[in-house]
């Protein structure tokens, strides 16, 4: 893998730090009146999501990380692993519960999502910004009930629980924003 000097650091560059792949968020050049120059660098650890602040001597190099974001189709889960496929090559990858995390509540079979690969292995799964899911369970909305702020919980086919307007019934197909977990609209057929 290539190495990168602090002068090449830019937002989005993937590098190895203490054995973990990281993504650079910000690179700030600081230099005292005389003497050594430094780079104050903000990075996100791609395995645990934590943000780090590190200081490098300017001109120093670190190893790049073999990290790729690939668009894949979600196939199914066997209870332990989630299975994905690159549509063009039929190449399949599987990711454990730890990697998929809360994203699992938005994964519907055959939907496309972004899988982050490090050395060929999935380390993160990002769902599409919007998904269309069917309501599997929700209580009938009571006309005139305003105590709940005009909405109620609904369980979707993937297990996600979303606040929906009172007029939504079981079996309806809804558009959900996965970044906020909020109801957007009824899906248009």
């Amino acid at each position: 893998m290539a190495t990168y000097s602090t002068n090449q650091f830019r937002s989005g560059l993937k590098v190895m730090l203490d054995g973990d792949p990281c993504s650079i968020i910000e690179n700030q050049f600081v230099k005292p009146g005389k003497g050594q120059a430094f780079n104050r660098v903000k990075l996100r650890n791609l395995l645990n999501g934590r943000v780090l602040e590190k200081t490098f001597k300017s001109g120093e190099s670190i190893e790049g990380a073999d990290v790729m974001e690939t668009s894949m189709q979600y196939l199914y889960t066997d209870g332990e692993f989630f299975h994905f496929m690159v549509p063009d090559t039929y190449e399949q990858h599987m990711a454990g519960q730890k990697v998929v995390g809360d994203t699992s509540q938005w994964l519907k079979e055959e939907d496309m999502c972004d899988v982050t690969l490090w050395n060929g292995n999935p380390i993160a799964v990002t769902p599409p910004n919007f998904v269309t899911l069917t309501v599997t369970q929700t209580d009938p909305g009571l006309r005139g009930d305003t105590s709940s702020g005009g909405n109620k919980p609904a369980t979707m086919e993937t297990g996600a629980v979303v606040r929906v307007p009172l007029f939504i019934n079981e079996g309806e197909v809804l558009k959900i924003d996965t970044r906020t977990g909020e109801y957007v609209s009824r899906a248009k057929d």
Partner: protein
Amino acid sequence: MLRARAALLAQLRMFFAQRGVLEVETPCLSRAVTADPQLHNPVVQLDAPRAPRAADGQPLPLYLQTSPEAHMKRLLAAGSGPIYQIGRAFRDGEAGALHNPEFTMLEWYRPGWNHRALMDEVDALAQETLGLGPARRVDYGRAFADAVGLDPHVASTAALADAARTHGVDAVGLDAVDDDDPALRATWRQLLWADRVEPRLGRDADGAAQAWLVEGFPADEEALARLRDRGDGVRIASRFELYADGVELANGYDELIDADEQRRRFAADAARTGRPVDDALLAALDAGLPVCAGVALGVDRLLMVRHGATSIDAVLTFPIDRA
């Protein structure tokens, strides 16, 4: 901002005209490389008649100057008297909120003056251009101790590294133990200075901009300044810096005029960096550089502080990524 820059340049030229300091222009290109191992000259390859060539006729590389210092000292040794220059300086590898690889530098020299007298003139220039009132005089060691809690002149590498950790500075790949390497100790000290101390300089307790003149810098940071004893055996450089609003604006000192001492320091730097020694400058020192004090001031930064800009890009016509 175009008008603001033009107004500042006119004001600076008026300041020196009134004081009888002569404006000069020296080349941006030189066959000499900077002696400061922390600075990097961009390299230019010319193919012109009379341009320097090797014995086989191939053109020699020329270097864009990191400051006009060497050329101006050659003028001083030739008897120019007090001179100033407003020109372009170049430093490869430097770009950020306060740095652009190409920038405007004001540099001036006062034969027969010491750095204390020059500090008063820098103060006068800061008052005229920034309107912040007389500069506060601050000791380097005191400013460092106030921010970090250590005496920078005597603190060990381990103590400096510890302080960095306590202040949340996480340095990658910097050995924190070896106390016998003075360069490593200096690096930790400079890291704390750049990260913890400098942002507080040139600001009052409420964070409002003030002008500060800082002196008493460690001896190991300056290749071309005279050194003196602080009184307790600690060697300090006869050097000062002007800060305002957390920004380093100027760096000045009593110029080293001893050609043999300069030759020794150049040789020591050359041994470390492999860079050739500036023979023309040494020849000028041999011929006799008058006792003098000199200072370099970043004009772009002066413009930033004057107009409250937080990034140098705001005062440049075209920053390096759009040049």
